[in-house]
């Protein structure tokens, strides 16, 4: 078997070149958030980390991430000491920018390594496919937009996630996989959404007997329990010691936020809000009561409580139960057939459920679905059919994150190149499926992809020419509703594929 060209490393080099060239690009407030965390962890004692509130961007990630920032700050002092002062808000000397941008690129090596392991661990018959999937993740426009322009450390975090998923491929790696995932949770708690799949898989494949679920492997249970306890202890021990757990948790889980994030993430609630908006105009004809206070709330895009004008309001509890209800069927299937493929599929479905039904979901969380799904997308053509609309909608939904003129061609062209290269490559590489495909779905996804073009033209050009600065929410609403249709469509497609194979 010849090597696959271009290799992962060969792709990483020009990608890194592009990322370095992006250093002077637009950066969001997340840049200042992370600068502030560098300052907090560097200049304050541990017990003040979760109390410090000079900046409005308080530390709201779990302790491992804070330790990670502390490590970075040890290097940062050689770049520019100024960024390490808690008081120097919005400090952005070029040294600071270059340093922080460089750390994003540097820590992304974890992802490169994890993907390398993924390709290495794939069976020879699907090496080619695994290689293509790994490249698609490495060069993902999502990571480029969110990490290297908007500014976050997702490449690093998803690297750890992929590492944990790859470790779970071999029975001997299950323990390590669980421990790595526990560490990941202590870095960023958004991955809690995936925890049910891990719980079920490790329970079934590691803690219970392979033949019968009534043969409990106690030694494994203890090993896993101790491993996770050690990770949790390392992360939270100090804060338990200082008796700060309540404060830490109040920072990690701020429930005072609204149902929808400022830009609507493309999920069920976006469609729900959109229907509500439409119903405002239809209500007089249908004789429905309209809540006058709420008419102006969602489209104003404020992060606050969202109330609906016509449709019933949604509470956090409802979203929680809906998420769980959407996850349970997949978890049940995983419990009875604990294969690695089913595990990754269940991870994807858990991510789908929480993204679609969760409370205050960020559009950035779509990577939580795309990245595990990419690992499976090339299993056969049916999987690819479900993946395609997700690849389009997921990335299009990220476009509103960047709104400056200079970044406009970057996000659009990079995404178009990525979609063209990988959808074509995937199309050639995906083996035919054993079961017949649902023919209609393909037509739907082609039509769906085609609609993206006029939509983007309207949102980026026509709207401004016609309305100027008025109705600013319209393009955003169209994009998120359009993307929501794609995400929901691919979810349904994937559910069908998962439960019929």
């Amino acid at each position, binding site marked *: 078997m010849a090597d696959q060209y*271009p290799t992962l490393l060969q792709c990483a*080099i020009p990608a890194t070149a592009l990322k370095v060239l992006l250093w002077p690009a637009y950066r969001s407030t997340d840049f200042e958030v992370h600068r502030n965390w560098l300052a907090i962890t560097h200049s304050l004692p541990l017990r003040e980390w979760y109390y410090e509130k000079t900046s409005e961007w308080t530390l709201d990630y779990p302790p491992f991430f804070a330790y990670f920032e502390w490590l970075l700050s040890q290097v940062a002092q050689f770049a520019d000491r100024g960024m390490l002062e808690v008081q120097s808000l919005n400090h952005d000397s070029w040294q600071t920018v270059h340093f922080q941008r460089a750390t994003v690129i540097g820590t992304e090596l974890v992802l490169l390594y994890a993907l390398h392991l993924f390709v290495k661990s794939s069976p020879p018959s699907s090496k080619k496919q695994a290689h293509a999937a790994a490249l698609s993740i490495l060069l993902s426009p999502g990571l480029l937009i969110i990490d290297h322009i908007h500014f976050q450390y997702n490449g690093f975090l998803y690297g750890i996630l992929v590492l944990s998923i790859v470790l779970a491929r071999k029975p001997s790696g299950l323990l390590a996989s669980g421990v790595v995932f526990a560490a990941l949770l202590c870095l960023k708690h958004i991955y809690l959404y995936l925890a049910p799949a891990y719980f079920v898989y490790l329970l079934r494949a590691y803690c219970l007997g392979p033949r019968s679920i009534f043969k409990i492997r106690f030694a494994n249970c203890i090993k896993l329990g101790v491993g996770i306890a050690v990770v949790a202890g390392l992360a939270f021990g100090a804060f338990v010691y200082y008796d700060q757990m309540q404060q830490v948790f109040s920072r990690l889980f701020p429930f005072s936020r609204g149902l929808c994030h400022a830009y609507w993430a493309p999920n069920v609630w976006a469609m729900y809000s959109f229907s509500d908006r439409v119903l405002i105009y239809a209500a007089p004809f249908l004789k429905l009561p309209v809540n006058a206070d709420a008419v102006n709330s969602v489209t104003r895009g404020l992060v606050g409580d969202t109330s609906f004008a016509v449709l019933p309001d949604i509470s956090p509890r409802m979203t929680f139960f809906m998420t769980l209800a959407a996850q349970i069927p997949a978890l049940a299937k995983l419990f009875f057939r604990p294969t690695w493929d089913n595990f990754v599929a269940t991870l994807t479905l858990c991510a789908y459920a929480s993204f679609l039904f969760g409370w205050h979901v960020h559009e950035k969380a779509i990577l939580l679905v795309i990245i595990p799904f990419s690992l499976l997308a090339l299993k056969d053509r049916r999987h690819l059919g479900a993946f395609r609309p997700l690849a389009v909608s997921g990335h299009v939904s990220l476009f509103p994150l960047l709104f400056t003129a200079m970044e406009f061609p970057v996000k659009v062209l990079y995404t178009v190149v990525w979609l063209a290269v990988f959808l074509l490559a995937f199309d050639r590489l995906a083996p035919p499926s054993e079961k017949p495909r649902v023919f209609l779905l393909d037509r739907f996804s082609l039509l769906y992809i085609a609609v993206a073009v006029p939509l983007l033209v309207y949102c980026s050009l026509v709207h401004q020419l016609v309305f100027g600065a008025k109705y600013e929410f319209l393009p955003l609403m169209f994009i998120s509703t359009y993307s929501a249709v794609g995400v929901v469509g691919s979810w349904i497609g994937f559910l069908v594929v998962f439960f019929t194979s």
Partner: protein
Amino acid sequence: MAPSPPTAYRPRKKRKPEPSTSNGTVTLDGSKTEQPAFPLAAFFWPAKGTNTTQWIILPLTLMLVFLFRWFTGMWPYSGHQKPPMHGDFEAQRHWMELTVNLPVTHWYFHDLEWWGLDYPPLTAYHSWVIGRIGWLVEPEWFRLYLSRGTDEAGLKVFMRATVVVSEFLIYVPAAVLCVRQLVRLHSINTWESSIALTALLMQPATILIDHGHFQYNTVMLGFTLATIASMLAGRPLWSCIFFVGALGFKQMALFYAPTVAAYLAGTCISPRLDIPRLLGIAIVTLASFAVLLLPLMLGTSYDTYRNVPLPSDATLPALLSSLPWQISEKAWHYPYLTQLAQAIHRIFPFARGLFEDKVANLWCAVHTSGLHKLHNYDSALLSRAALGLTLTSITPPCAILFLRPRKELIPYAFATTAWGFFLCSYQVHEKNVLLPLLPMTILLATEGGMKAATRAWVGFANLLACWTVFPLLIKDQLRIPYFVLTGLWAWLVGLPPVSIGAYAIPGEEGGLSLGSKLLHLGTYAAMVAWHVVEAWVEPPENKPDLWVVANVCLGAAGFGLCYLWCLWRLVEGSGLLSDLGLTKRKEEALKRKQ
């Protein structure tokens, strides 16, 4: 390779088979499997041997090279927030300001001190078009006098966009056509031509100067590529039109003029005398010049009709009074002649020095290295010396091309002549190194062009050129883009300082000879060492420019080598030596081997 699993993908029809590989993008490893010879080829690997059409590969390549250009544009430009004079960015913006606001007759008379218009008319029209569009976007960017030194973020995006758009309208199509013609001439397969095209479009020096420093060189270079493409396609009249376009955009295209003339004249006399063709070329060239000047003349006649006076501070060009005949101010042609004379006066400022700033050419190297100080000499003497030396350096390539007007020789002749001009002529800027680089880089698309030997020389010239413009880029705060783009290109084509693969191939197997290898590797080592020294060691106090001088001297020496190499390849390719009996014919040599 294992048989690929069955897929639903079915090509609709079989294409006709492509010519086999001949350009050196592929090597064999021990187990007789093919391998990409350098990383750039690896990126095209998935398309190799498949029916992936150019309709997919070409747009994707173009979008990617666009991204690299646009990303470079995010960095500062020359003169960014540097009062009082700013830099080339301000010059270009100012030309838009003045062409949009002033009557045509004032264009070449307006205030010389603040970046007076000193480029040929096509640049003026180009500025006018862009200025008009920009005026629609935001008039404040181009208000007469008030907008000087503007450096708003929106203006930067607009100006960067105009460079990219101009390039994609002219340079990129010309590059695609030119590579296609070369590929047809040398029977290279499409797959390899895409690789050569990408290498050409990723040329770091061009990206850094146009999209980093800020200039519109690619417009002129694009016209030049179109000229070469038309010559290769056997359409000499089109090449005249395009070349007048190049000259009309930037006078620096004169570097190429002798080659163009030699080739076109050569095709008229060999294989047999062809008077109609000669006449056609002459007429088309003159007509093109007339069209080039037409808008300027129409504007002048409109201003004369409206009785718009020249600016009050206008001094009539000396050229006008040195005409052999006396013209009266009342004559109908007087205003037109004044405009022409003034434009020529601005475009060719004979009064400036031998060289400007520090440029890696012969004069500057001789002067600054202290080998021989030139400022003691009379400037007229120096310019005559420059003229003489330039003529000496360009005569051999032009003579060869005139005697043997073969298509295969065109890139070599263009490169040799341009190197001659760059090294020896008068008033050269460091940015002009782009001119010899272009014809040299298209050699990648010729037969064996991506084999180790040619690739090494093309890469050597490109990397050395980037290195000589580095002192300029430091001033523009473009250090990081320089390292990124230059390093990336060196890696893509598999050359030092990133890889020495191309130098590991022995001379008999298409590699370089030992002498060239040593020269190249020595130069690369010196370049790397220079960067280390420049970054960490302060120059001695009495010689603050020491590092730049070192750069200039090494650069000039390296470019001299490039000149000699191009000239040698030209001589070799022309077959003149074998005709003169100095070497044996290739065929005979081959026969003897068999």
